[in-house]
Structures are given as structure tokens and as C-alpha cells.
């Protein structure tokens, strides 16, 4: 069948394995991939995803057994995808979250999944702490105040709230949640958490549900995956339990918080502030936030440092090499 897709030419030195590229690649990643594999590039093909996947079955010398998949949710590795690409035996994704991959379905079909592992935990944790300090100490708001020339005119900026000693409730104590906990402990915060099951390796106080966690916390940090159970895990009741001096930080997924309820709680003074890196309909950030001085807004960028970019590149290549060598993946994702 005539193929409209771009197929890399076979180098004279011998056959390389083919890899489906379903994400944008920066120069470093592109070079690293080209050096090792035949890259079958979706974004260069101009085809629709189903057409591309169907055509790739005819790729020479072999259909790609591994795919690098973007993590922003624009491509969903679900049953339909796997039906369209039965030749795939390994999916390597690069997002911190896995809500775009049906991990259980992949496992059922014997398709290996490699994730981002711990690559992003450091930068996301740093960003979470940065957002929290910003909200409590009003860094961004005060920066605006100074830049507008208000300091000589209106005098001292209104007082913020002390971070040290705050009770911080972390929702989800995985790699990211643990990294956040380690950092905030050094600031003298009291760390407590909710996750599906208590972790016996930590001494932090465990709460079996988010509502009771919120009732006894000054800060809630959302650091859990997004799935059916955690959709809107922070809702109107949780915000009410958190209370008027409470602060929410979200570096997980917009869908973890009922955004309308959050806006309402902020408008009504029912919570004190929020630091948000993620939103329900990115990049559409509700305009209601723009007039609030007690929120800090960033553009889903908690992972975007040059360091994590290069760490990720190394990890993706490492996973592909392990797969093609028949070795265990470097950062496998297993079904729950």
C-alpha cells in the first residue's frame, strides 16, 4: 500500500530497529534517536493518527515495535490506539502523569510501558515549594506592586503568612509527594498525607481520606495521579474543610481540583490562596483568577527545566535500548 508517511532511509551500515515518534523531539533527542534507530515520525507525516498507525504496519524493514508518545494528552494510548498498531510491543512516554495511557489495557496485550520514572520529581517538587512560598509570602504580588511603582506611594506591602510550622497535607505520597515532603520538612513544616494506602516507610501522619486531611491542614498540596478516583479529589467540601486561612497548591493535573469550586472559594474568602501550575482546560485559564492577588499561576511548566529535558532524553534512549536488547525497562510502569 502506498504510504504517505516519511520513512527514514536505511543506512548502509545495516538495519536499525524502527521507532514510532509520536512526540516532538528537540535537537538533542532527534540526534540521539537518529543515531540509533529508524525514526518513523508522525508529526512529519501530515497524516491523521489512524492513517499513520495503519501505514506504519508497512514500514521497512520491519514495523516499529516501540513508540515514543507525547504526554500532553493529545495522543491517548487506549484500546483503539493499540488496535490500530498491533505491531507495537513497547510504549515509552515522557510525561510525569500517565492519564493518557491505559496501562491496564497495555498489560492485557503484553505491551510494555516505560514512564518518566523519577526524572521530573525534583523539578516538580522545587516548583511546588516555590509556588507555596510565593502564595504565603506574596512574592509575585509584591513583585507586581514594586514594578508598578506602588512602594513609595502606598508604603509597605500587606503582611504574608509564615511557612515554618504550617501543617502541610500532601495528597499522593509518590516520588513527587515524597520529594516535596523532604523539602518542606527542612522549613519546619509539619508533614501529613493521604494516599490510597499508608506508607510504612515514612513517619508522617496518615489520613484515610482527603476531607479529614484538609480539616487538619493549613496547606494542601495535590501530588497524585489523575484517574477516575482522583478526579475532583479537591472539591467544595474539601476546600471548606481546609478553611479561610488555607492554601492549595496544584502541580498534578487540573482535573484533580473542581476548578469552579476553587474559584468560588477564593472569591468568597473561604480559602486564603492558591498556587496553580495546572488547569482543567489548558491553556484556557479562567479569567477570574487574573484579578486575584492571592493566587499564583504558572503555565504547566513544573517539569520544564533544561536539566529535566536532558535527563528525560537519556531516560527515553535508555528505555528503548533496554527494550530492543530484551532487557528490563529502566523505568517500567506496572498496572496497579
Amino acid at each position, binding site marked *: 500500500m502506498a504510504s504517505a508517511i516519511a520513512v527514514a532511509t536505511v543506512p548502509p551500515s545495516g538495519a536499525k530497529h524502527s521507532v514510532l515518534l509520536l512526540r516532538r523531539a528537540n535537537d538533542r533527542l532527534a540526534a540521539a534517536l537518529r543515531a540509533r534507530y529508524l525514526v518513523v515520525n508522525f508529526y512529519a507525516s501530515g497524516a491523521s493518527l489512524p492513517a499513520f498507525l495503519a501505514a506504519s504496519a508497512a514500514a521497512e524493514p520491519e514495523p516499529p515495535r516501540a513508540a515514543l508518545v507525547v504526554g500532553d494528552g493529545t495522543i491517548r494510548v487506549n484500546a483503539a490506539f493499540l488496535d490500530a498498531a498491533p505491531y507495537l510491543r513497547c510504549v515509552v512516554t515522557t510525561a510525569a502523569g500517565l492519564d493518557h495511557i491505559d496501562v491496564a489495557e497495555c498489560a492485557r496485550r503484553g505491551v510494555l510501558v516505560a514512564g518518566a520514572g523519577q526524572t521530573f520529581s*525534583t523539578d516538580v517538587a522545587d516548583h511546588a515549594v*516555590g509556588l507555596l512560598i510565593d502564595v504565603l509570602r506574596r512574592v509575585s504580588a509584591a513583585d507586581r506592586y514594586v514594578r508598578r511603582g506602588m512602594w513609595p506611594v502606598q508604603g509597605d*506591602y500587606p*503582611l504574608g503568612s509564615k511557612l515554618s510550622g504550617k501543617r502541610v497535607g500532601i495528597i499522593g505520597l509518590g516520588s513527587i509527594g515524597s520529594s516535596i515532603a523532604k523539602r518542606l520538612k527542612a522549613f519546619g513544616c509539619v508533614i501529613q498525607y493521604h494516599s490510597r494506602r499508608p506508607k510504612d516507610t515514612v513517619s508522617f501522619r496518615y489520613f484515610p481520606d482527603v476531607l479529614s486531611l484538609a480539616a487538619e491542614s493549613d496547606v494542601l498540596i495535590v501530588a497524585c495521579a489523575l484517574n477516575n478516583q482522583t478526579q475532583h479529589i479537591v472539591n467544595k467540601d474539601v476546600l471548606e474543610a481546609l478553611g479561610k486561612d488555607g492554601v492549595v497548591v496544584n502541580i498534578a493535573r487540573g482535573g484533580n481540583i473542581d476548578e469552579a469550586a476553587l474559584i468560588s472559594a477564593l472569591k468568597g474568602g473561604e480559602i486564603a490562596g492558591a498556587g496553580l501550575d495546572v488547569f482543567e482546560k489548558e491553556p484556557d*485559564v479562567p479569567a477570574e483568577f487574573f484579578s486575584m492577588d492571592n493566587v499564583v499561576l*504558572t503555565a504547566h511548566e513544573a517539569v520544564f527545566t533544561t536539566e529535566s529535558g536532558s535527563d528525560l532524553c537519556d531516560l527515553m534512549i535508555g528505555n528503548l535500548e533496554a527494550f530492543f536488547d530484551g532487557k528490563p525497562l529502566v523505568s517500567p510502569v506496572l498496572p496497579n
Partner: protein
Amino acid sequence: MESLGVLLLHPMNAYLEQELDRRFRLIRLWDAPPGADARAAFLRANAAAIRAVVGNAGYNADAALIDALPALEIVASFSVGIDRVDLAKCRDRGIRVTNTPDVLTDDVADLAVGLAIAALRKIPQADRYVRAGLWKAKGDYTLTTRFSGKRVAILGLGRIGLAVAKRAEAFDCSISYHSRSQKPFPNYRFFTNVVDLAANCDVLIVACLLNAETHHIVSREVIHALGPEGVLINIGRGAHVDEPELVSALLEKRLGAAGLDVFEHEPFPPEQLLGLDNVVLVPHVGSDTEETCKAMADLVLQNLEAHALNKPLLTPVI
């Protein structure tokens, strides 16, 4: 006991002012009519009553004020830094001076690290980007650089410097420092020379006290050593840094970024900084939380009460 006459130099804190008014005889310097002559007349009229002065980082008992107050016995500063108190004159006159150490250590250290993350990860800049609708219009914000693991250098390893070090360590940062003498922390690398310190770090945090030796301690040479990838965080005093040099280094990108809580001429930060994208600017808020300001105010009040009752001062400097 006659109520202690206290001159409050500036409306620095509502709770402090209210309690001074309740517990002592409060005189507000800003009640004086405007102008130097009117102010001098106001001080003369109240001089006999004023036995105490409460100042802060920006407004304190300088030589002129001390000379105008012959009955002055104690200066209780609503700050830990007392570089604006004429200590020599106080010593000569036998005037006691108190400050507010320890209660603000955590807040200042928290802000120092918060500014470092803000500067490296460009959080206020990203917030501006989102509020301007640019995420939708132009796409993702720019890549930034990781804070964790950076080499953090601290100028001054006192209470605040140590608290900064402890926090930075939780981010796997390596710690180096300069202070008047080496401290018993073998994990922290000591530098006798500030230029070498700056040359061997990624983030330089100013946390020492201001005196003649530390004036402009962050000089042109130090800024040059810090370099185009380097970050300067100042939670000390504006006068610790050669500000014109800092401004031109930031404008010309010879210095990577800065997070500044203090400036040489507060409340007037250099105008050229106000439009820059590689700097985070906050208006001297290092200890500005409800919790800490209350604790600082209580310490000022307790020191004044101790003085009034001839009891030992809680946090005397002299």
C-alpha cells in the same frame, strides 16, 4: 512609676502601635508637621518625655535624633539589623539598644530560598505571562533551570545564614560560605575570600549584618565572579551590594538573575530594574508575616517593659 514616653518613628505595625499606646505614653513622630524645622520643634517640645525610641530597618535612632533627645535611655528596634542605629553614640550616652533576633530567622530564610526558586524558575515572570493571556496566544513559557543541586554560597553564617543552609540542603544543594571566622560545620566549604566564594557557586545569598566592613561587600568583582549564569539573592541590606554595578550587570546580562528584598534607597528600587525579566523584586518583606511581626512586636514591648521595671533586657545589643 511614671509611664515610659516612647517615640515611634514610623507606623511600622498596627499591633505594635496599639500596644505601645496602651502600655506606655506613645508619641508618634509622624504627628509632627512636615518640614525639618517643624520636626525639630516637635522633638524639642516632647524631648523631656521621650525616654525610649522604637525604630526599624528603615527608620532608626541616628546621631541627629539621639542628640535631640537628652532623656533617651533605650532604643528598642523592630528589626534584627540595627545598622541605622548610631551604636557608638548610644554607648557614649549609656543608651541601651535591643533588637529582634531569632523570631524572624525562619521567615527571612524562607524568603531567601523562595526568592532563589522564584529567580531560577521564573515564577513571577510565568505568572505575568499567564495573566497576560500569553500561554494561550504564544504557547508554552520558556525553559528554566533547576534549583535543586545548585551550589549555594552564603555570605554570613549567622542565625539566618544557617537557616538558609539547612533549607538548601534539603534540595541537595552544596553549601559554601564566607564569614569573619570559620564555623564548626565541616560539610560547608569555607572561603576566606568573597570573590572566590562567588566564583565557585551558582547562587549567592547575602545574609550577613551591615557594617563598615560589609558595605558593598558584593562588589563589581564579586558580581563578575558570579557571572552570566549566576544568581544573587539579597535578604540583607541594600548597602551590601554596589547597586549601580548590580543594575548594569543585570541589564547587560553579565549577571544571570537576582532576587532582591532590599535596596540602597528604599522605597526606591532602581528604575531600570522595574522592567527587567531576570530579576524578582519584593519591598523589604523578609520578616513580614502576621506571625513574625506579632512576635517581633511582643519582643519590643517586653524589652521596653523590662527596661521600665529595671529588669534585665531580653535581647540587648548593648
